[in-house]
């Protein structure tokens, strides 16, 4: 059976949801996998709803759309989680920003990864790193791409001017991976 990962990322505008998906997509491309990245689009505004769907496969990708068959769901805030948690298929993984999301009635047919990405990012010195912390957690637990490839993708997506931010982003990825791993200790 060929490999196919369908990753649905959602949050509000400004949380880096789209770039999280793009870094993943770019990294997968660098690993010579097939990949698609589809954004939701509409009247854009900061703080508005933002989501994107990333499909990674080793074969040509047909439908790039995710309905209720995401293998992984990534949710950065409560509104996105409540609206889209059922997009993840039974047996899938849900990564949630536990600083902003509480669920008294969680699904029982998926695996939850509750990562306090805002707290971790703040501890690292920049709340803007929250998406990278999440990406580190997600990529480590869902085994999507080589973690170093995400940094290669960072260079391609954000360009030479932003290369000075690579060390701090690398740390954010590592902290995310660590937090996710600790959940299962």
């Amino acid at each position, binding site marked *: 059976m060929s490999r196919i990962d369908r990753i649905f990322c959602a949050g509000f505008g400004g949380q880096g949801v789209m770039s999280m998906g793009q870094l993943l997509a770019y990294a997968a*491309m660098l690993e010579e996998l097939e*990949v698609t990245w*589809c954004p939701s*689009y*509409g009247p854009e505004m900061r703080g508005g709803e933002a989501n994107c769907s990333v499909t990674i496969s080793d074969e040509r990708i*047909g439908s790039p759309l995710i309905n209720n068959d995401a293998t992984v769901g990534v949710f950065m805030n409560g509104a996105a989680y409540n609206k889209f948690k059922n997009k993840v298929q039974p047996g899938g993984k849900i990564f949630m920003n536990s600083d902003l999301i509480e669920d008294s009635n969680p699904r029982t047919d998926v695996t939850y990864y509750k990562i306090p990405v805002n707290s971790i990012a703040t501890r690292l010195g920049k709340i803007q790193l929250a998406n990278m912390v999440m990406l580190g957690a997600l990529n480590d637990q869902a085994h999507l791409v080589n973690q170093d490839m995400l940094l290669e993708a960072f260079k391609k997506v954000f360009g030479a001017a932003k290369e000075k931010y690579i060390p701090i982003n690398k740390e954010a990825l590592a902290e995310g991976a660590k937090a996710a791993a600790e959940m299962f200790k």
Partner: protein
Amino acid sequence: MAKVLLKGNEAVVRAAIEAGCKYFFGYPITPQNEIPEYFSKELPKIGGAFVQGESEVASINMLYGAAAAGARAMTSSSSPGIALMQEGIGYISKAELPAVIVNMMRGGPGLGGIQPSQSDYHMCVKGGANGDYHNIVLAPGNVQELVDMVQEAFDIADQYGMLVIVLADGLIGQMMEPVELRKPKARPIEPKTWALTGPNGGKPHRIYNLKLQAPDLEQDNIDLFKKYEVIEKNETRYEDYMMDDAEFAFASYGTASRVVRTAVDKLRAEGYKIGLIRPQTLWPFPYEAFKRPNIKKYLDVELSMGQMIDDVAIACGDKNMIEFFGHTGGVLITVDEVCDFAKKIMGGAK
């Protein structure tokens, strides 16, 4: 060349510039705004020009002028904007000038919505302007094909003196996929000796639209359709998927065909003998692709109320052999819906 991850709209610009397009005229409209935005940054760097017209009507007539002057030029828009351009499209077609238009379709009719749709098949393939004419219409199914087709569109336009429309939709425009910029096959392209570049000491060049003598105008139309016959013979394209032993065949293009392709995989896994015929050119339409004695039914799937279905019906010669499924207004079809639709038609036939 290494692959790059590009949004469909950005890919259009990269491909057009690679193909030697130096002039872009357009007016903003969602979901294709990255095209004019990116052109506005890139064209001045290569000695070209980006002009935001005061309207779509102005933009298409600027394209008419640039094409008449022999330049490689294009415009882009989305459904309601293309509707506004129809007069200019008719004039360019009558003048037999090479030009390229990209249409990232959205929901209609009227101002409609901004989500992806395939609502403009009739307008672009059957002609939204007056008179007897055709435009060549290319229908990319993914971003790589979009890149390839935009590049080739300029060559096809020059080879035949035709307006070429690349008919994609908001999803292809907005989504990112890895693409490789590669050269299309070389085509026989004549120098533009007719271009309005000044007489240079010789006779002035003229490009006419009006022809008041009826027999002369009829002769023009006859000549135009002789050219169209050559294009139909040379340029018709489609792609088969899982058609070798198929007893049922989907007919679908562009974004809809991607969802259908996944549905074919699912149905095949359950033992159904079903495939997909995906037209890559909508005019000329691949009528020959639908003459298959083993096919019991054609299942036409579009993001419309059913527009390409008319051509599928002409192609297979029996409208009773065709079933339709689609969504409109920006609602997308799902793989499960397409599978359910197909199973209803196929019954237990495996």
